């Protein structure tokens, strides 16, 4: 039974165009399709599509104290958000954070991966060390970094005191708080990014480097003209997931700065959470969620449109 239907599903290339309009699922196909795809479609619908459309729906209403939709207001929530300086500043803050995190994660990841790809005795120790942050959970990292940033007993404070430099108030100064969050996030992401880059660099054919060596090209030139182009698919993949991941950053912000000081680290996702589960304003936070979805979709689209063309597969 299955055999006959698969020939229908994957027709010969030549007749594909002709058969396209006539292509029909038999009752049998429908039965098997529903058995195989049904459960996952059902779960996907229940836990992904339903909440998505529900969010869209709620965002066009005002919600009362219990989160029930009471008054249809159309796009009012969106208009108010986009015109509120508070929300716009949140968007900027998120953008700065995303750009900062993506840039430093990729730069550091590449640097470390390039260093660790050298064939030297004992290099395995460094490879393990650089990727060790993969095993650290967000809460542990947050506590660890909170100790480092502590203004009276933190590592950085002790260091600046030792060097007779002015103490930096990492978490109460708006600019420094942003740096603190960026540093922490980059540190968290680094293990994974390093590992992926290392794998990519290792898989670049050595013949290319040998040829370059014969030509007498510098290591610097080799990195930018051999390594980078050869690992560009990985670079593209990493930049996409880092951008999406940092847009959705939540745990570190909640545990380290709580969006403060003066909303300097109040990223969109944290704002959405706060407005819904702290302020109880589900309509506003739904509208914010939709805006965030649009922004992420836009960035992903940009990446596929412009970056992907530059990728050497």
């Amino acid at each position, binding site marked *: 039974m299955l055999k006959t239907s698969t020939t229908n599903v994957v027709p010969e290339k030549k007749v594909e165009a002709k058969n396209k309009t006539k292509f029909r699922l038999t009752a049998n196909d429908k039965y098997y399709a529903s058995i195989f795809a049904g459960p996952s479609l059902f779960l996907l619908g229940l836990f992904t599509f339903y909440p998505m459309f529900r969010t869209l729906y709620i965002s066009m209403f005002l919600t009362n104290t219990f989160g029930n939709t009471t008054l249809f207001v159309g796009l009012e929530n969106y208009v108010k958000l986009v015109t509120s300086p508070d929300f716009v500043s949140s968007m900027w803050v998120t953008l700065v954070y995303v750009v900062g995190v993506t840039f430093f994660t990729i730069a550091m990841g590449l640097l470390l991966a390039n260093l660790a790809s050298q064939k030297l005795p004992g290099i395995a120790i460094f490879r393990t060390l650089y990727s060790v942050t993969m095993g650290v959970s967000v809460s542990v990292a947050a506590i660890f970094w909170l100790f480092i940033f502590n203004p009276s007993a933190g590592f950085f404070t002790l260091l600046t005191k030792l060097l007779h430099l002015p103490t930096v108030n990492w978490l109460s100064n708006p600019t420094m708080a942003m740096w603190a969050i960026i540093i922490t996030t980059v540190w968290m992401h680094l293990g994974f990014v390093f590992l992926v880059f290392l794998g990519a660099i290792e898989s670049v054919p050595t013949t290319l480097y040998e040829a370059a060596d014969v030509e007498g090209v510098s290591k610097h030139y080799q990195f930018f003209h051999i390594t980078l182009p050869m690992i560009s698919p990985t670079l593209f993949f990493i930049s996409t997931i880092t951008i999406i991941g940092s847009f959705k950053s939540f745990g570190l912000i909640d545990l380290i700065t709580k969006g403060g000081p003066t909303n300097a680290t109040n990223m969109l996702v944290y704002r959405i959470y706060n407005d819904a589960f702290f302020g*109880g304003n589900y309509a506003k936070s739904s509208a914010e969620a939709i805006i965030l979805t649009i922004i992420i979709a836009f960035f992903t689209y940009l990446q596929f449109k412009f970056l992907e063309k530059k990728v050497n597969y």
Partner: protein
Amino acid sequence: MTKYKKMILSLILVIGVIFLGVFGNNISAQTSANNRIPVVFWHEMGGPAEKTLLKLVNDFNKSQTKYQVIPKYQGSYDTAIQKIFQTHGTNTSPAVFQSSNVSTAQVLHSGFTTPIQKFVDADNYDLSKISPVARAFHAQGGKQQAMPFNTSQPVLYYNATLLEKYGITPPSVSPTYSEITKIAKELYEKSNHQVKGMTVQIYGWLLEEAIANNGGMFTNRNDGHTGNPTKVSINNPEAIEFFKWIRENIKNGDFMDYGAGSMASTNQTSGFLTNKVGMYVQSSASMSQLNKKNKNKLGVTYFPHADGKKANGVSIGGAALWISNDKPKEIQQGAYEFIKYTVRPEVQAQWQKSTGYMALNKDSKDTKILQQFYAKHPEGKIPSQQLQNTVPNFGNSGILLEGMQSIRKLEENAMEKIYRGGDIEKTLQQNEDAINEIVYNQNRANGYK
């Protein structure tokens, strides 16, 4: 047909597994209390207060055989209230819950609770033993809606050892702004700028209390006691005076600004304990913590007020216990019995001694527990004195307004900007407008007039 049967069967199996996962927990929870009526109690006490509370619950369960109170910790006040609203009417909801005073208006409007007055009347319980200011926050039309439980007051803490060392007269019982300024300046100068005089945390509650203590109103309709508020005012003379006082002193260097980060409160406390700042205002609930870790003598006095005025008194902070109306009669009765137990004189006395929240029962001060505590820590009396000396009026009986969680964020926004040198009236007006936008929208969404 058999194929469809198979399909339906597999679907049922999938759904069944999901439902078992979701509701499985509750099935086991309900059968756990043997022969006693289970009374699920949601609370938000963490740290040392939780230990004391769990002991209190345990003692109640031992004191009788009819009810079994099951305490469940629900995280912070603000997330817990959302959980309470979202689960009401389901079998996961609590029979009795602790809700922050900030959420009082929300719970009142929800209609999800049975007024405690109903049980009090049936029981002929004498409410007059319980502090009237604390009761006023949770009463409507003279009827008690909830029972205040963990109640605090904002007070001024000072480092008595440090003041003595520099020969500075400690603040009077009910100090004025200029008196605090004078002490702060002296401390700052005499310590060669090593010790900052005072700090006021960026915390909306303190702004609300400053307005209350100087006789102002936070909202129209008498802070919500005579109808649902439609307008909030933080750009008012009381707030402006409060901020002028703080900002002038921050500029002069004798006040400290710890910022508004997540560590601000911790840094402030550790600054006070390590002689970096001499005075600060905070909830009286911090007292047990301050007493435990403090090498210096702790001084406590009333919340400061503006010059040339008599203090109007501050409203209470903390939380109250409410009875859900989605549970059968006997469970609600059990909830009431538990609440009644929590305000017994000796229970409240123990509660004050180990947590720093104030004993609300007037008879508590005659108990052995508190007598001994006061003999060792005479300053421990001050918050209760401040509470007792306050004559309840609309201004100092708490603010009955919904959405206070978001509103406080905006208050704190204003505080932080002003502390950093922003124009007082302009900043207050901006944030007042933003707050009123929230109030307008929530009234519209809830259909309040």
